[in-house]
């Protein structure tokens, strides 16, 4: 069992932590100056020997400075457990003292990035619900100490659960090997991944370009950006190659993304929580306790459906107005139907909701989407006619209009909601299909929204706010929405269960 006294006095991280902090500082500095470095390397031959000596001295001073800084950060980072509080002292010049009471701790996660994996230390992050400043990360602890800390924190929290924490690791519910990972990545939404990848590349190119223009060198990348659109359309071969290339890049970027985030995905069920470990460069281990999950979404797409796999997204409470919501979104991929059944059972999602009557949004929803897209397309055409003044671009309508129509219809077909006494199931999606399960008592507040157009049609939008974001039921008939509104309020107000 853990020696509780281990943390009663202030303790430091593992000395290896210096290395982790050092690497992080260097990486940050590199990220801020990488463009300068590229320019420097380009001009390397042009420097005189004398200047080079100074440059080398500069670099050494830089490195030593960061090393000292890392050491100071390390020695000034102290934590202990004191009377139901986790106390942290940090800061070299500007001292910071944080204490968190145990009942506010939402999660204790382990994480390992590449360096931490190499020197075998774990990063322990302590998440809290509430104010956003109290996310704490202890950069480097040995596995034993990390486990001990986790236990110490959860022990005081729930004294009764001492024994369960010591139980041997059970067989994982889900384990995704490399082969399976590959299979899953083939069925991903390649278009989306392609766009993410392109955005990254263009962002970097833009940055490079800015710098080169800034230092007086002419547009180096201009040649790439200056492709006349007519050439592409005229030469079908180039076009086909272009498309093929995009497809290859799309598939590759899906694969890389899946590999980075979900490598070696394992899911354990432990008593009342789910433990998920995944990631290649940054290995993350997350303990999700059941009560803290606000909603789950089960998603699939046509190809995945054929293979019988889907992915599950767990949503936890978001603290404050944090931007990095991804951290609170935990996703596991490659789930089979049986596994989903077990997860649902564990989270008390009563599967009978799947067989309830299915309600679809009012026709007005479809009309509104037509109307909005029509406006979008008209604006697009106006831009082509009056700003670009090149009528060849009008042919783009041949592609844009049918695709928009198709997407609208898919979206309308996939939108639905159904419910039983405890749970609401909301369906949405275009190519993918997402089903979100939300227990009524997790709702924080509820809204009815009605535009003047909706009023004429007697439909409203019903917005359910949860601790992990809002869920909208679009264009519900007014009287049905009011009944649901009253019922959900009744469920929330009569519920004895805590939402977190």
């Amino acid at each position, binding site marked *: 069992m853990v020696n509780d006294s281990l943390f009663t006095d202030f303790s430091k991280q593992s000395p290896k932590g210096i290395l982790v902090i050092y690497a992080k500082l260097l990486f940050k500095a590199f990220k801020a100056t990488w463009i300068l470095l590229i320019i420097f390397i380009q001009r390397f031959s042009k420097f005189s020997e004398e200047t080079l000596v100074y440059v080398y001295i500069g670099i050494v001073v830089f490195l030593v400075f960061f090393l000292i800084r890392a050491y100071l950060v390390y020695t000034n980072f102290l934590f202990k457990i004191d009377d139901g509080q986790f106390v942290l002292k940090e800061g070299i010049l500007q001292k910071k003292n944080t204490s968190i009471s145990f009942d506010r701790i939402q999660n204790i996660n382990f994480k390992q990035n590449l360096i931490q994996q190499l020197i075998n230390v774990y990063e322990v992050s302590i998440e809290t619900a509430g104010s956003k400043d109290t996310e704490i990360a202890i950069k480097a602890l040995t596995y034993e100490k990390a486990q001990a800390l986790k236990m110490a924190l959860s022990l005081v929290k729930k004294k009764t659960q001492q024994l369960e924490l010591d139980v041997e690791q059970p067989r994982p519910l889900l384990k995704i090997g490399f082969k399976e990972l590959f299979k899953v990545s083939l069925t991903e939404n390649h278009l989306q991944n392609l766009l993410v990848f392109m955005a990254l590349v263009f962002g970097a190119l833009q940055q490079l370009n800015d710098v080169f223009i800034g230092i007086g060198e002419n547009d180096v990348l201009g040649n790439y950006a200056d492709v006349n659109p007519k050439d592409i359309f005229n030469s079908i071969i180039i076009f086909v190659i272009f498309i093929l290339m995009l497809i290859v890049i799309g598939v590759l970027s899906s694969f890389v993304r899946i590999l980075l985030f979900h490598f070696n995905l394992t899911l354990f069920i432990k008593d009342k929580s789910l433990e998920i470990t995944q990631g290649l460069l940054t290995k993350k281990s997350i303990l999700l306790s059941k009560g803290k999950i606000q909603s789950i979404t089960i998603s699939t797409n046509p190809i995945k459906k054929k293979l019988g796999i889907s992915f599950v997204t767990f949503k936890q409470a*978001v603290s404050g107005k944090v931007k990095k919501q991804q951290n609170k979104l935990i996703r596991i991929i490659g789930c089979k139907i049986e596994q989903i059944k077990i997860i649902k059972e564990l989270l008390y999602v009563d599967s009978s909701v799947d067989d309830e009557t299915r309600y679809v949004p009012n026709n007005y929803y479809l009309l509104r989407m037509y109307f909005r897209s029509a406006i979008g397309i008209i604006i697009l055409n106006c831009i082509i006619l009056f700003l670009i003044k090149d009528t060849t671009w009008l042919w783009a309508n041949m592609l844009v209009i049918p695709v928009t129509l198709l997407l609208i219809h898919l979206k309308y077909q996939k939108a639905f909601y159904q419910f039983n006494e405890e749970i609401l199931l909301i369906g949405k999606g275009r190519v993918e299909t997402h089903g979100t399960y939300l227990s009524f008592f997790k709702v924080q507040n509820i*809204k009815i929204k*009605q535009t003047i157009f909706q009023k004429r049609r007697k439909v409203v939008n019903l917005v359910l706010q949860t*601790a*992990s974001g809002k869920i909208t039921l679009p264009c519900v008939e007014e009287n049905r929405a009011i009944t649901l*509104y009253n019922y959900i*309020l009744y469920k929330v107000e009569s519920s004895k269960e805590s939402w977190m």
Partner: protein
Amino acid sequence: MEFSNIEILQLPDISKVTFKRIHKDHLKVLILTILSVFTILFLAVFLLETNVEEIGSFPYVNYIYLVLVLLFFVLLIAFGIGFSRRKYVLRDKDVTYKSGVLIKVVTTVPFSRIQHVEISEAPISRLFKLASLNVFTAGDSSNDLVIKGIKKEEALKIKEFINQQING
């Protein structure tokens, strides 16, 4: 639509509650606010016209005043309607607020989900002893409930009431 066990008709119905309007002095606050904003705008345009030559010689300069005047009246009407739509009600277990001109919104927050309650006073509102009541719930708090334009004493009373409900 059927829920077994529970008779729908017995549930408290939000559409059958009598709502209370916000304090009538709030209309004055709104008008004063618009007036002060437009005074500044008019002054700015006037000063630009008399002092900057390019703008003074701009042929359509009078239209700018016309647009400003039109905008002023449109906003005045919109705020007037908006004012009459702002209503709230406290029930045993929740607080509800409705408002909206083009988009009508009804929001209900159950007391059991309230994290904390705040009272704030804007400068012009303070002249009329008005305050606004902000109710926060967990999660992304941008979408919570704000009741603007109630008497400060009443706001304090409501705050006290809600605090009792949360803790009691």
